[in-house]
């Protein structure tokens, strides 16, 4: 697999505050990568530095396969969070205009614009003024104009965050098709979107990379066995739960198998080291104490748990 983009020690300071504190990552050709993080983590700042809209305070951004003297921007397609067009233009005019600015010939630009508008489902509205487009239509037009010159890397900033559920579905569907054709990097604060679309994730937190890698790999590396236990509203059972939580940290046999206990109301959530031993110990305990539970479930932690853990710290 070929490397397309290499980012090294990227820093951006606004006055005293550092929005991005030394981010390094690389993107492989043909992969779809999500820049994942909570609001204010520095996702947008990072993306704007990649597109050249913002000058990095320090660090380097390297594109492989860039000929000497070639503009980095000619390999990039960029879709901002809420793209602003000229409202007095029609959708068709705008995509042709974008194509011409990327160096396509008039005929080529027109041809591409037609194809892309068809592709993003705006063929009907192509001749209408952009001023009358809905949010979802503008986002799809944004995709069309970003793709007009067949960029090597499509960069998107929160492509679906500002959309209603229908617009979201439309755009996510399009992205699923597109990712097989080009390399994609997008930022999001919604884990679900990243899981649905991406091969790789880069989780960033307060301007730093907290975790990065291929999604299946991260999933298997950070997957922990857990047991969830739901109790009935029954005083002795609840008392047992409180006692069990305390005993776990003191008792050597229990703390060897159970790593962590979280108790929320009638829910107990056990992160365990050895599933078999923990299951054994717990069921014995439940039978002995006659605990009234309504549900007992053994499974694995989800990516969401990992995300919350990484981001929440």
């Amino acid at each position, binding site marked *: 697999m070929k490397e397309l983009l290499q980012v090294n020690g990227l820093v951006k300071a606004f006055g005293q505050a550092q929005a991005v504190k030394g981010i390094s990552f690389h993107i492989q050709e043909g992969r779809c990568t999500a820049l994942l993080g909570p609001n204010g983590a520095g996702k947008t700042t990072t993306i*704007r530095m990649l*597109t*050249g*809209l*913002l*000058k990095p305070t320090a660090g380097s951004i390297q594109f492989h396969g860039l000929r000497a003297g070639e*503009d980095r*921007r*000619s390999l*990039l397609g*960029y879709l*901002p969070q*809420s*793209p*602003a*067009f*000229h409202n*007095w*233009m029609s959708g068709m*005019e705008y995509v042709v*205009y*974008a194509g*011409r*600015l*990327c*160096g396509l010939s008039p005929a080529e630009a027109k041809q591409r614009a037609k194809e892309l508008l068809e592709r993003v489902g705006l063929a009907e509205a192509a001749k209408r003024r952009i001023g009358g487009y809905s949010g979802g239509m503008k986002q799809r037009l*944004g995709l069309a*104009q970003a793709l007009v*010159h067949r960029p090597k890397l499509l960069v998107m900033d929160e492509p679906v965050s500002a959309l209603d559920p229908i617009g979201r579905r439309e755009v996510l569907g399009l992205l699923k098709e597109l990712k097989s054709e080009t390399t994609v990097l997008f930022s999001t604060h919604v884990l679900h979107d990243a899981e649905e679309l991406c091969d790789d994730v880069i989780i960033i937190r307060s301007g730093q990379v907290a975790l990065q890698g291929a999604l299946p790999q991260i999933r298997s590396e950070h997957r922990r066995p857990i047991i969830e236990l739901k109790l009935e509203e029954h005083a002795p059972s609840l008392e047992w739960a409180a006692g069990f939580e305390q005993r776990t940290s003191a008792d050597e046999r229990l703390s060897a198998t159970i790593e962590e206990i979280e108790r929320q109301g009638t829910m107990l959530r056990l992160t365990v080291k050895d599933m078999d031993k923990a299951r054994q110990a717990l069921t014995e305990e439940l039978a002995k104490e006659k605990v009234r539970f309504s549900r007992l479930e053994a499974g694995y932690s989800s990516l969401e748990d990992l995300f919350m853990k990484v981001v929440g710290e």
Partner: protein
Amino acid sequence: MSAVKLMTLVRKEWLEQLRSFKLIWIPLVFALLGIMQPLTNYYMPVIIEKAGNMPEGAVIEMPVPSGAEVLAGTLSQFGMIGLLILALAFMGAVSGDRNSGAASLVLVKPVSFLSFILSKWLGMMTLLWGALLIGYAASWYYTWLLFETVDFAPFLLSYVLYGLWFTFILTAVLLFSTLLRSAAGAAFSALGLALLLTALSGIAPKYMGWSPSSLTGFAYEAVQGGFDASASFGWSIGVTILLIAAGIAGSSALLRRQPALD
């Protein structure tokens, strides 16, 4: 910088001017201003008579202005109202696109910053020189109808000199519109600069001969035929052209330093 991309950007500016009707109403206003001056000059005695607040038996004697004087009057009308209208029409040239985010969509494409600024400037220039020509020619025609012919050469020379002064101020509008977020701030900074330079030229004409604002004086002289190319004429033209080039380069540098505001 590629000429094809620059032309694409300029064509977009023209289309915008057309769709926002600037391409129509600005030349119209200039034509109106141009026609008004000879008309009011011609009918002034009648207007004053009909105004009716003259004492009984007063005899109004007004010297009939020469054609050149009428045209000079037209230019000074353009210099006030025309300049105000142009500055207001273009005050958001860069800041508008930057504030809305439309500029960032263009500037992530392989387009040079200078092309972006130059396209705005060329868009302004075609409208400015066109509107000024239409207005001034209309005034010339009506002056010929109502007063006398003014030779073509002085007419043309005064047009070019006045146009150069306008070019200077509109370049300042462009620069301030790149520097400031506020469109109104850009218009008033540029108009303030125009006022300041004009006032300084009025107070100390001897020392301000090099200033772009003295071009207006040269234009009045040129149309009235009493023009002799003094040393300061060359200076003011040179300085003006230099400042215009510096304004464009400065705007481009400002844009490069911070392509997007949001």
